[in-house]
């Protein structure tokens, strides 16, 4: 929104496809599938279809960038912050399903824009977006795009900071009250109700705050406390170094998942980690064992929901949620005590003097 508004688009004219749902896929994506082995990419057909065929007011531009790298708090501490190749190529791949008999975009009067963009390289982004969008926006100048990109990053930073602040508040409350919370270790698209199926909401309803690894607070005091000993011992170079557990640190979300497991293992009040993974995610598969081992060896409870696809397995989720909450009721207090005993003194989440 920050970028598009700065480019002069009226925010009322910017439309996002709605949350993923089975209905969306059936109604708008049927017969246009080009991908079967990655559920989140497969969903894109329904999103495109909704934007092309399902709007009261016709759209004139459909923007779906091919994102090569992601901005990450681990950037500079890991080898690369690449997106999954399937996600990066997704826009071109899914587009093919809309060109089968005729060009569905052109038929609907829509210009399809898919600029290639390296979001973790802010100096490159204005050039990439300018090249990718100038055909559709003939009056656009490089300077305008540079200003718009700056506004986009500013909005993104503000959004991330707001959520990390909330995460810190939750952790401080847990520390003050000695209460457990849960952390979800998953990919960002699992926050979409049609992909992650809001499984964590069912656990939240039992009275447990839920943190997501993407928005974990990364304040210097907390990071120094959590990782300071490992840095002094020479295991890692910085709080965001994951070389001790994951050396092929090329994939941005995979890196963050591994880091999430590490930080969850170190925070006493995170009594349980929930792992979500979608159907046939090749990027996730090699991470299952390390993530589980890192979490469980700290004494933290670990539960995973794998191979999620379009259907919410409501019955089995209910049984699993009852199991998870049973374990939490029974063991959370002792897990917190044990993790506190292993943690260094002076936790910044606690009020001074505690």
């Amino acid at each position, binding site marked *: 929104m920050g970028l598009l508004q700065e480019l002069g688009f*009226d925010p*009322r004219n910017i439309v996002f496809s709605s949350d993923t749902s089975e209905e969306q896929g059936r109604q708008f994506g049927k017969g246009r599938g080009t991908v079967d082995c990655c559920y989140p990419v497969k969903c894109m057909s329904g999103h495109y279809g909704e934007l092309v065929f399902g709007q009261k007011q016709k759209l004139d531009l459909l923007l779906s960038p091919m994102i090569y790298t992601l901005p990450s708090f681990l950037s500079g501490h890991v080898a690369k912050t690449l997106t999954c190749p399937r996600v990066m190529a997704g826009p071109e791949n899914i587009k093919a399903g809309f060109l089968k008999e005729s060009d569905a975009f052109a038929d609907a009067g829509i210009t399809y824009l898919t600029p290639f963009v390296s979001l973790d390289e802010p100096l490159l982004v204005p050039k990439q977006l300018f090249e990718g969008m100038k055909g559709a926006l003939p009056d656009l100048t490089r300077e305008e795009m540079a200003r718009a990109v700056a506004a986009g990053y500013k909005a993104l930073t503000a*959004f991330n900071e707001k959520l990390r602040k909330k995460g810190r508040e*939750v952790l401080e409350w847990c520390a003050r009250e000695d209460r457990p919370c849960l952390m*979800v270790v998953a990919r960002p698209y699992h926050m979409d*109700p049609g992909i992650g199926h809001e499984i964590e*909401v069912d656990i939240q309803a039992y009275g447990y705050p*839920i*943190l997501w690894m993407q*928005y974990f607070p990364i304040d210097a005091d907390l990071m120094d406390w959590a990782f300071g000993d490992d840095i002094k011992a020479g295991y890692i170079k910085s709080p965001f170094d994951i070389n001790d557990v994951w050396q092929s640190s090329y994939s941005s979300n995979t890196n963050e998942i591994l880091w999430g497991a590490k930080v969850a293992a170190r925070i006493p009040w995170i009594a349980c980690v929930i792992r979500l993974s979608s159907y046939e995610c090749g990027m996730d598969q090699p991470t299952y064992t390390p993530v589980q081992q890192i979490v469980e060896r700290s004494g933290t409870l670990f539960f995973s929901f794998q191979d999620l696809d379009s259907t919410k397995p409501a019955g089995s989720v209910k049984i699993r949620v009852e199991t998870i909450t049973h374990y939490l009721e029974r063991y959370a207090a002792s897990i917190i005590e044990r993790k506190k005993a292993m943690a260094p003194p002076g936790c910044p989440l606690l009020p001074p003097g505690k």
Partner: protein
Amino acid sequence: MISGNSCPKGLVEDVNEMRVVKAKLEEVKREYPNVAEMVRKDAFRRVSAAAVTE
């Protein structure tokens, strides 16, 4: 017969009971936040006309 195997909303018999159940669920959600709820509320959402005029 399968009993006790329904979500809280599925167990109610009229709209007033549903309101009570819903209010309780909302209260728990407020008290025990979920960071993803904030993301779902704010990210990738169309701006309303009211928000633009503010």
